[in-house]
């Protein structure tokens, strides 16, 4: 399936760079990981309506992290129709449309990527378990760092932010050894 081949790095890099630029030109730099907290906040507030409360100055929460910075996360969770949350939903829709336009993914690829299967076999359960634990560690780390690959690495280094460089150094210091140990076969 030729559709699996990514864009040439020159075209792809310029296209991705233009999206970063458009974001900061029109609104603000791109970031994603905060929205996991916002969705958690929305879900928690459904389960326990006193989780987020409106005050005279704005919003607050029984959770200290949700309430920090004058309750800006609490405010976003109380009003999900905000730029950053819609951005992430639109990103998902854009990726879906792009994948469908090039013919969709194969059935086996939808369970586990080929590189994973080449190294760890066809067990779906094993792949799902690692993806789940990976997701936990990634989002815990992203929230501790205050951003993720998009917010810190791409948007951060683009703006010459010192924090972006610190984050990127940490991310690759861990990612390269882990990937080299786990993915010896190319698939």
């Amino acid at each position, binding site marked *: 399936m030729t559709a699996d*081949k*990514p*864009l040439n790095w020159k075209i*792809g*890099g*310029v296209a*991705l*760079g233009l999206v*970063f*630029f*458009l974001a900061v*030109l029109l609104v603000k*730099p791109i970031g*994603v*990981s905060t929205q*996991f*907290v916002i969705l*958690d906040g929305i879900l928690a507030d459904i389960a326990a309506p006193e989780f987020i409360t409106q005050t005279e100055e704005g919003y607050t929460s029984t959770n*200290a992290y949700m309430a920090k910075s004058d309750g800006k996360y609490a405010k976003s969770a109380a009003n999900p129709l905000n730029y950053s949350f*819609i*951005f992430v939903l639109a*990103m*998902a829709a*854009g990726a879906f*449309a*792009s*994948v469908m336009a090039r013919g969709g993914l194969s059935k086996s*690829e939808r369970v586990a*990527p080929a*590189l994973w299967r080449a190294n760890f076999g066809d067990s779906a359960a094993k792949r799902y378990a690692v*993806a789940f634990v*990976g*997701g*936990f*560690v*990634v989002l*815990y*780390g*992203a929230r*501790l*760092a205050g951003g993720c*690959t998009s917010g*810190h690495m*791409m948007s951060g*280094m*683009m*703006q010459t*932010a*010192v924090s972006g460089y610190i984050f*990127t150094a*940490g*991310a690759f210091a*861990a990612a*390269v050894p882990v*990937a*080299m140990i*786990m*993915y*010896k076969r*190319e698939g």
Partner: protein
Amino acid sequence: MQIILAIVIGAAFGAVLDRVGAANPNWIGKMLSLKHLHLAKTIILAIGVGSVLMFGGQMLGLVEVGHMSVKAAYVGVFIGGLLLGAGWAASGYCPGTGVCAAASGRKDALFFIAGGLLGAAAYMATYPSWKASGLLDDIAGGKVTLGAVPGASYDGLFAVSGDVLGVALGAVFVLVAIVLPERLSGDGAGVETPAE
């Protein structure tokens, strides 16, 4: 208006992440195990292009400096980076690309998102301990850029003009993207070359 921009820019971001292979864990794994740097070249070029356009636009007065958003530097940024890197390598997903992959029909990415929601909740629950540890306290001036950007509220780490430095560094990123080889290791047997 903001919502329309969120839809347009968000959809463009998701589509481009798919087309460059960033939402595909195969390419992430091959990049992070230093076998195939096609995606690294793409991302480094993108950062360079974005930087040159943004800082160049600021110097010409076409881009509002106030749209910049610089995050604080603290020890936790590095620790969090280490954690994210390990999970990114193991799963092949980061927060943005995991969402894109799940939307594309990858079932493993749904487990990534479920784990991610739990991980974010775990951080929310443990945040007071991190706060008390001092590891979230600013280092190197906190919200700083490498050089002071004219008109921005952020300090510069070095006594250089931030926008000139931004354009120069952007050019360096572009150059690195060009000279970086597609392959550092691996025999390449049985692997198709990427689209060129």
